[in-house]
């Protein structure tokens, strides 16, 4: 089914919204306005948006420590996300989670996660729940190339494959696990090769090509909804920022970064929209302006929101 112009423009807007959100977080972080540490998604926007554009209300996603993009792609409020990063009471988690733990179960967002590879079995479980409740829902797990070396990856893929769970495993291969390049941390080029070991389809796509990601995940989601089980999709991409803000990136070259910046997924998709005649430059500029306003207002919302009262400290440990 071909995408409508509105859908494509919305996907463009979502990618821009992620980029603007992340650039703003980088900025306020560098000014010491937010606590903790942040891991930004700049450069990988096509993966989250391409995949999440296939999801419906009953679906779940599980995310990584680099989760802002996934949340925005899933439809989370940038106001509440920003407030969470600022540690404010109006944040998604009342300021108790922060950047690495933004979550909204009602939105089908099982959370960013501070533990590498932890989302894989959680997504398998959410997929199991959807299958058990027979609600036609699927679960998607985003994880990195380095997480594919963890036991959680093996156990979750194996269990999901024997139980034919409606889950899609999306590996964001950004070529590094913190400082360790993929060629140093695993002896394969394509993480998708690992699907063979579990008897499920595995494919590698250009993770900076929004349409390639969208189409591959669309197929995988259909397969999952049809009861045919999991798929492993590897999206080759790159993070423009370091592993975390403040990372000096001594492990990679300027040249490598510049090569990847040329392959920016947003610029690429904009060029495609222009080329297809779906939008004019003025229209794209307008979206850009709107997104900047939206993030400006999210920052304002976050700044205005109060810090949590100290009485919050011991609340929410247990359900009543």
């Amino acid at each position, binding site marked *: 089914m071909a995408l409508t112009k509105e859908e494509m423009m919305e996907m463009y807007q979502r990618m821009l919204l992620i980029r603007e959100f992340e650039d703003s977080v980088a900025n306020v972080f560098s000014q010491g306005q937010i606590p903790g540490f942040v891991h930004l998604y700049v450069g990988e926007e096509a993966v989250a948006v391409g995949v999440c554009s296939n999801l419906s209300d009953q679906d779940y996603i599980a995310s990584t420590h680099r989760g802002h993009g996934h949340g925005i792609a899933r439809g989370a409020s940038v106001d509440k996300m920003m407030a969470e990063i600022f540690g404010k009471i109006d944040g998604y988690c009342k300021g*108790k989670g922060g950047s690495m733990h933004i979550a909204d*179960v009602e939105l089908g967002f099982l959370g960013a996660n501070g533990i590498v590879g932890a989302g894989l*079995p959680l997504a398998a479980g*959410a997929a*199991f729940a959807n299958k058990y409740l027979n609600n036609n829902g699927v679960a998607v797990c985003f994880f990195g190339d380095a997480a594919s070396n963890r036991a959680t990856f093996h156990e*979750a893929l194996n*269990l999901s494959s024997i139980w034919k769970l409606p889950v899609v495993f999306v590996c964001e291969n950004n070529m590094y696990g913190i400082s360790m390049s993929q060629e140093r941390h695993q002896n394969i080029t394509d993480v998708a090769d690992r699907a063979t070991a579990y008897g499920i389809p595995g494919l590698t796509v250009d993770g900076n090509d929004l349409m390639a990601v969208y189409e591959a995940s669309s197929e995988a989601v259909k397969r999952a909804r049809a009861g045919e089980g999991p798929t492993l999709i590897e999206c080759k991409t790159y993070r423009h920022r370091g592993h975390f803000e403040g990372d000096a990136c001594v492990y990679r070259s300027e040249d490598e970064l510049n090569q990847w910046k040329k392959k920016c997924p947003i610029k690429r998709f904009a060029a495609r929209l222009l080329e297809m005649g779906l939008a004019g430059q003025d229209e794209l500029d307008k979206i850009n302006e709107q997104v900047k306003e939206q993030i400006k207002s999210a920052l304002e919302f976050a700044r205005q929101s109060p810090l949590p009262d100290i009485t919050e400290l011991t609340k929410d440990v247990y359900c009543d």
Partner: protein
Amino acid sequence: MLEMTYSQAINAALREEMRRDGTVYILGEDVGVFGGCFGVTVGLIDEFGAQRVMDTPISETAIMGSAVGAAAAGLRPVPEIMFVDFMAVCLDEFFNQAAKMRYMFGGKARVPVTLRTVCGAGVGAAAQHSQSLEAWFTHMPGVKVVMPSTPADAKGLLAASIRDDNPVIFIEHKVLYGLSGPVPEGEYTIPLGKADIKRPGGDVTVVATSMMLHKALAAAQTLAGEGIEAEVIDPRTLSPLDKDTILESVAKTGRLVVVHEAVKTGGFGGEIAAIVAEEGFDYLDAPIKRVGAPFTPVPFSPPLEAAYIPDENKIIAAVKELL
């Protein structure tokens, strides 16, 4: 009252909860066709089918992790980890995911997982299949820790655990599975966080958990023959802990012995002793005594294993030192 073994009582609670609530399902290694490594889940697959009594591969991480994901997505999983020792393989899923979700998500998640597992020495299973690790879990906010000692408690506490909206670790004792006892007819629950006075007495308070409750009762029987009346308390749940019942008892007796099978060092007995020292120091007429295993892995050879597990004599000796 019915007469039932500890194992049958747990089976009955699982059966009744699964009948009552269609979102309750069991998963674990060999829990289905095989009926569980200790036979606890026997027959459940016949009534509920393989869709609700799910045999898993040997994959503790996936068992625990998928249960947490499913719980967050609306189900009420009852995973089984065959031996508590194997929790080492899936601690992230329990400690960093299940225990933290509600808090980290600002109170918006619900993780109603009841993890059943098995502790304890006494069957020659050696150091990787015999540990008592409850103290690990009591140190973790966000989870509840239950350790039943009798068939009746096991049934009522398991039903309450499954109905609870929080992650619960329900630690059974392998030596207790064959123990018979009276169990009330029909469905019932025992609130988590409520201790039980198993034997009243005025001379000394003995707090004992799981298998040690039975050793403490035997010791109390012997002591009674010598005119010493021990009040034996089973906390039943360690987190939340019913400290009021313990403090009230110590206020009455003035003496406290805490008994558990886990190694004494860093064991939960230290927590109970510290609570009484902090909040009930004025009640005490003697120092607090702890009885636990020596600081060693559980040995295999029968005389060594027998020497490892605290027994009646050690409890009696501890009581007498206080009098």
